[in-house]
């Protein structure tokens, strides 16, 4: 019974710390105006969103996907094509990209969810490779050449901010906050418990009457939607995309690495993972420059092996000493 009292005590802290962190992130651009720092932060937010999105399907529902870049790419391509060819507003394009990704997720998920554990992993990897091959050879989306987005007048409505990076900073932070809140609510909801049951024991879940395929489709749809809108923002921010940027398997794996490094199956783990891995990969690349080819990758890889060996539940466990 003592667990209950500990739980109550934690609850206040659990809200206070994230709230203070959010507050400091909101005011941060007032103090730091360095463009490169802001760029790194925008990348952190985008990767935190995709890692948290992966977390819904992978961390909570236990379906490890190595193909999530397909949703990211479909989001990026949908909003970009709509903007370039049909002058559709990027915000609308972002929503439509999310919907396209959900449709793709259901088309892929419906057959692939029959597969278990490692067969599922390899199937998502194969599906991602197929989608990438399609985009590489699809003339309508300019194949391997990629798409250049038109530069429009600065406005929030048009999701264009060419003079400073604050716009994308706050868009990224806002979306991340919404997603983290949703995932938190999910963990407290009946749906979240269904997801966890499927992760723990799928056969048992099915035997007590949970329609596991339907719930897995719900999970992959949520994952796909948020991954896709992050893809749209990414495209709108960089104003250029090609299949090698938004579709490769290495990107799909990166999403997983970030989530697992921080702590899969926890609300804040993937966010923590992004805050650690993305600055390391961005900064080491700049710091060592062209001379130290491979050093960034070495650091990154060694950290991942180290965490996998000694902190298998992710770095978030460092902050959870009063649990267990």
């Amino acid at each position, binding site marked *: 019974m003592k667990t209950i009292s500990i739980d109550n005590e934690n609850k206040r802290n659990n809200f206070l710390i994230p709230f203070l962190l959010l507050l400091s992130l909101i005011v941060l651009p007032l103090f730091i105006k360095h463009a490169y720092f802001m760029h790194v932060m925008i990348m952190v937010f985008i990767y935190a969103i995709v890692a948290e999105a992966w977390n819904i399907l992978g961390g909570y529902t236990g379906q490890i996907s190595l193909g999530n870049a397909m949703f990211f790419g479909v989001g990026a391509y949908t909003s970009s094509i709509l903007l370039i060819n049909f002058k559709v507003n990027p915000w609308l394009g972002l929503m439509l990209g999310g919907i396209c990704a959900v449709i793709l997720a259901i088309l892929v998920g419906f057959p692939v969810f029959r597969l278990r554990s490692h067969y599922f992993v390899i199937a998502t*990897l194969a599906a991602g490779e197929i989608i990438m091959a399609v985009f590489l050879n699809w003339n309508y989306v300019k194949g391997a050449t990629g798409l250049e987005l038109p530069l429009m007048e600065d406005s929030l409505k048009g999701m264009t901010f060419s003079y400073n990076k604050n716009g994308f900073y706050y868009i990224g932070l806002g979306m991340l906050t919404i997603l983290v809140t949703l995932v938190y609510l999910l963990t407290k909801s009946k749906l979240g418990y269904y997801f966890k049951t499927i992760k723990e024991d799928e056969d048992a879940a099915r035997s007590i009457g949970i329609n596991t395929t339907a719930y897995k489709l719900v999970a992959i749809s949520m994952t796909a939607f948020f991954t896709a809108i992050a893809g749209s923002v990414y495209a709108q921010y960089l104003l250029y995309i090609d299949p090698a940027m938004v579709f490769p398997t*290495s990107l799909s794996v990166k999403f997983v690495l970030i989530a697992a490094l921080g702590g899969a199956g926890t609300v804040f783990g993937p966010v923590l993972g992004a805050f650690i891995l993305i600055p390391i990969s961005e900064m080491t690349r700049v710091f060592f420059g062209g001379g130290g080819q491979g050093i960034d990758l070495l650091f990154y890889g060694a950290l991942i092996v180290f965490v996998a060996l000694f902190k298998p539940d992710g770095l978030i466990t460092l902050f959870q000493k009063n649990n267990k």
Partner: protein
Amino acid sequence: MNLEIIIQAIISGLSIGFVYALVSLGLTLIWGTMEIINFAHGDFLMLSMYGSFWFFTLFGIDPLISLPLVFLISFIFGVLVYKGVIKTILNRQMLSQVLATYGLGMVFQALALFFWSPNYRLIRGNFLKGTFRLGNISIGIPQFVTSVICIVAILALFYFLDKTKIGRAIKATTLNKDAAALVGINIEFIFTLVLGLGIALVGMAGSLLSNFYYIYPQVGALFGTLAYVVVAIGGFGSVQGALMGGLLLGLITSLTGVLINPAFKYAAAFLVYLIVVLIKPTGLKGW
């Protein structure tokens, strides 16, 4: 589209298929005994290709001669990786195993990039080169010799697994770890041996590939991905499955390249994989 082109595609498909099979056999053995997908598998292939390259460049040893050396070094390297990394993650969740092995692969790639630069390298002036003709069909000599050595290696492996005491102990461990331990099989020894053997097999494949394939730090990515699909198509843990899967993928990639469009040769292989596992979710020979 005449018959000769198709026969030509089938021959080159089978010859690369044997290489896929050899790469995948190590992966499926490791999975079968330890239930770990080695996501660094392709990077072991890359390292062994560099190994053959440096034996040739620094000491003038032909890849064909250094083959046993690369095999042996890969074996020892595999044993070290087992002791250093794999042993710790044996009973962890799949996600943590993916993380550890993928991270290991990244470290290998980073080291290759750092020491040997991202440049593409090719072994030139080695013993195996040129082509020979059978009627109107031309066959590359390096590819042909590679296939022959692959077939011999695969037969030797099957013989080892079926007829020797240690081989049967490996098979028993694949079927049931606990029962194998009960009848007195030293599981720890089997795991060490299988990881060494698995990496030695992929090392052998890399050594053979280095006779005719470009060598660069990311060369393992494509072969690794294909090997996962080969193993899954054949059924995780099944050696016959890996052989069938390797040849099947070799044929599909080659025939798609010739008959449809080279840009879709790998996508076609992945598509066939999805179709196979949707019909039989545990692969051709899996359980």
